[in-house]
């Protein structure tokens, strides 16, 4: 069993939604993660709010960000256990983030630090 990280990328993180829509998304996320947890394959995860976001640059320059300069923003991630990358991809397909056109979920294997990976 390997661990994978599923990274949510939003094409436009600043879109304003109605409170009702936000609540629907939240419910969908809970159901999605609930489904993975039910299979005992959920490791951890979190959302990444934009409040207090900073970008530290070369020469230790700190800017507020990442706004305006990149098209995509990272909205959050979860880590799952999966027998193969294909299983992890199946989990990713259910992610509510994908309902937004242009949004993506990137699936990456976590290095085991066992000298092989």
């Amino acid at each position, binding site marked *: 069993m390997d661990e994978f990280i599923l990274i949510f990328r939003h094409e436009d993180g600043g879109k304003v939604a*109605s409170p009702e829509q*936000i609540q629907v998304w939240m419910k969908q996320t809970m159901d999605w993660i609930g489904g993975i947890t039910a299979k005992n394959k959920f490791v951890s995860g979190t959302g990444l709010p934009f409040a207090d976001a900073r970008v530290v640059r070369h020469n230790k320059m700190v800017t507020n960000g990442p706004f305006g300069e990149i098209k995509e923003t990272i909205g959050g991630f979860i880590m799952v256990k999966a027998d193969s990358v294909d299983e992890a991809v199946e989990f990713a397909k259910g992610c509510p983030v994908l309902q937004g056109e242009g949004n993506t979920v990137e699936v990456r294997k976590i290095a085991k630090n066992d000298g092989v990976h």
Partner: protein
Amino acid sequence: MGQQEIIPHLFRTEYSKIVSVLCKRFGIDQIEMAEDISSDTFLTAAQSWGMNGLPANPTAWLYRVAKNKAINHLQRKHVFESKISLPLKKEAIEFQEEEIDLSPGNINDSQLQMMFTICHPSISPEAQVGLSLRILCGFGIDEIADAFLTNRETINKRLFRAREKLREEKIKIEMPPPAHIEKRLESVITTIYLLFNEGYYSLSQDSTLRKDLCLEAMRLCYMLVENKSTNKPAVNALLSLMCFHASRFDAREGKNGETILYDEQDTSLWDTDLISKGAYFLHCATSGKDISTYHLEAAIAYWNTQKTDSPEKWENVLELYDRLLKIKNSPIAALNRIFALSKVKGPEIGIKVAEKLNLTDNPFYFSLIGELYTPIDNNKAVEHFQKALKLLSAESGKQVIQRKIEKLSSGHQFPTSPLIN
């Protein structure tokens, strides 16, 4: 995770509370800031709760986050004013630990005051309804656009202009002085009435949304009833009227969203609880001397909750319409009065009076005459229904008329039914 049922419409309900409190604290000129902080609170909640599950007390969690965001905003503003504006203006500004009061009492006060602010006579009624949906009911732009059968841009523009107007007029968020309450209350309840009608008669396909609109109108009206200074007879009459109408919610629409006319409704689906609540508020409405249009409309709506077709019923309804038309003339009320008239004096008299109205651009005018001709002359009935069909734009209305024409053509006899459903 996810075992707990998410409280329905929690965000929408809390949105209106948080916006009202923040707006009152910041002032009406900062209305967009108040809206942004509230929206941001729910985005944070959705990310955090979606991943980690519901907190033990969701509402308290939302208030804490909203409060922190508001304090951050005020601190940033303070830094700007004291470090940048101050040297320019040479004015001393003290920063106090800002109190953002999200207690039940202040939430209630803020919402009531916000109602009077939004329904200020200087704002157009159309904009008042839009702003109420956004600020007082927490509806999104898409939902408002859907309810009005228009697009986002139109609604955005309308709301933008309304906010500008609020700023220009420097309308304070406060209760009107006692001497002005009655007068100002008029435009508040007119907006609630329009809000309800928007839901009840909306042509939107989304029936859940339509019902939500009506329930929100009833909630706002109930807030006025709960408050001593605004608990006036006309407010009770309006609430009664809405209860009576809302009692038919489940009966007036078929499984496929088609309109079911009053006479064809399954009366076992009428909500008896709402009917008795309506009767209770109608009783409360009789405490004063004045009879408003809401009183008369509520009384008519009461008779419509009585399924039995007695002469007493129609005589009463006719008299109520006579009185209503003296105060407020509207084509629909005039047509409904004629229906009651024909129930009391016969369809021939009804047709005669109806034709005098000559409302030849109104589809309901033709469908009423078609209706009245139905027991007398099939051909004339069909002819009028076809004229109505040409003028109707809504699909659901067309289906109803089409059904009538088909039945008439097949020689089916059926009782006439009023224009309500």
